[in-house]
């Protein structure tokens, strides 16, 4: 067979296989980041995020111009041939996000409504795909945990001692290079179950965080194998 035919065959075949392998954690991470952006910034410009979303659904597109991209998204049905597959509910979520953006600058039109809506969407997605883990910690924390390690497959392979300190990497790095005390405060510590805000003492908080991370790591594995792993 000629080289260009071999190249062609592999491009097509690989696109199909990638299409099947793309996991829904990408859309969870996406909405988690939007919710975070809204919390962190006054009035963020979402062009970069819109492009991220576009490339999730149409990974091989070459559109560069922001205006064209926005218009394209506005009329899209989000039916992906080779990117992330979304069900009807998820397409609705994506559409809602895009409808919140103004066409001039890709900024949020009605911030208060958007914050509420996006947080609800994020929580719904988390509960749908991580039904067990989301009973243990708040949806926004779970989303941030997964986003910060880059995916559900990675977190489901981590020992609970690592899960406990996700989000405290900077402190961990300091600990290893400068021999300061080992960090205790990962993302998990924001959970009401730990009770920091209610004045629980650090020692007790540490104990609770360890127990929570233990349970969480088991449940993450269950959720991963039920809803994400393709090799069954």
């Amino acid at each position, binding site marked *: *067979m000629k*080289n*260009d035919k*071999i*190249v062609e*065959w*592999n*491009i097509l*075949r*690989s*696109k199909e*296989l*990638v299409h099947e*392998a*793309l*996991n829904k954690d990408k859309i969870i991470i996406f909405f988690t980041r939007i919710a975070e952006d809204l919390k962190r910034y006054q009035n963020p410009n979402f062009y970069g995020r819109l492009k991220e979303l576009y*490339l999730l659904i149409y*990974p*091989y597109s070459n559109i560069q111009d922001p205006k064209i991209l926005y218009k394209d998204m506005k009329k899209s049905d989000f039916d992906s041939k080779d990117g992330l597959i979304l069900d009807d509910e998820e397409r609705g979520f994506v559409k809602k996000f895009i409808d919140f953006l103004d066409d001039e600058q890709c900024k949020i039109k009605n911030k208060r409504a958007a914050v509420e809506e996006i947080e609800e969407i994020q929580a719904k997605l988390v509960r749908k795909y991580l039904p067990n883990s989301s009973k243990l910690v708040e949806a926004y924390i779970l989303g941030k945990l997964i986003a910060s390690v880059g995916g559900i497959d990675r977190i489901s392979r981590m020992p609970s001692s690592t899960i406990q300190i996700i989000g405290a990497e900077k402190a961990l790095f300091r600990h290893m290079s400068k021999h300061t005390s080992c960090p205790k405060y990962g993302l998990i510590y924001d959970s009401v179950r730990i009770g920091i805000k209610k004045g629980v003492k650090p020692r007790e908080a540490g104990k609770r965080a360890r127990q929570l991370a233990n349970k969480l790591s088991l449940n993450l594995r269950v959720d991963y194998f039920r809803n994400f792993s393709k090799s069954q």
Partner: protein
Amino acid sequence: MVFTKDKTPRKPSKLYREWNPLKSKWCAAIRKGIEEIIPPKDAVVLYLGASTGTTVSHISDLTDEIIFAVENSAEMAIPLIRLAEKRRNIAPIFSDARDIEYIKKAMFGKKINILFQDIPSRDQVEILIKNSDEFADKNTQILFSLKTQSISQQNPDRTYREVTEKLKKHFLILKNISLDPFHRKHYFFVLSKI
């Protein structure tokens, strides 16, 4: 500095691209003096652990033949496939490098001249042996980038010695160097089949 002549130049004035040894173990090995691994124009390459195709793009500049680029992470494979669409001579293979049967199918019986591997996994040596058993012969140049930390947390020198012993059972070791200072705790081997 190492440059390759760009097969897809963006501007007529910029015909060459810098090949960065900090981003490419292959280039780092060249910079450390192993010049015989600069691929010739007619090289057919099997590249295991292609990632987004940073190094693959330079190999694609250098050879007019085909590069089979194997990568098993969907996130990395997307930019790799995009790269393959822009160039004519990269066959992106979305597969585990351990899945010899699939890779064989995707190569359509093409014989390779160079086998390159950069996969930081615990069983990286076994992956290399498996692939060279299937795809290499005595004339194939086998290039192996070793990351000792992925095999064991013990002293890198010790892992390096153990790996060398294992390799000797299957290959002739033509060259072996450390990739320091470009890549710490990484080693590079030029091998051929016994």
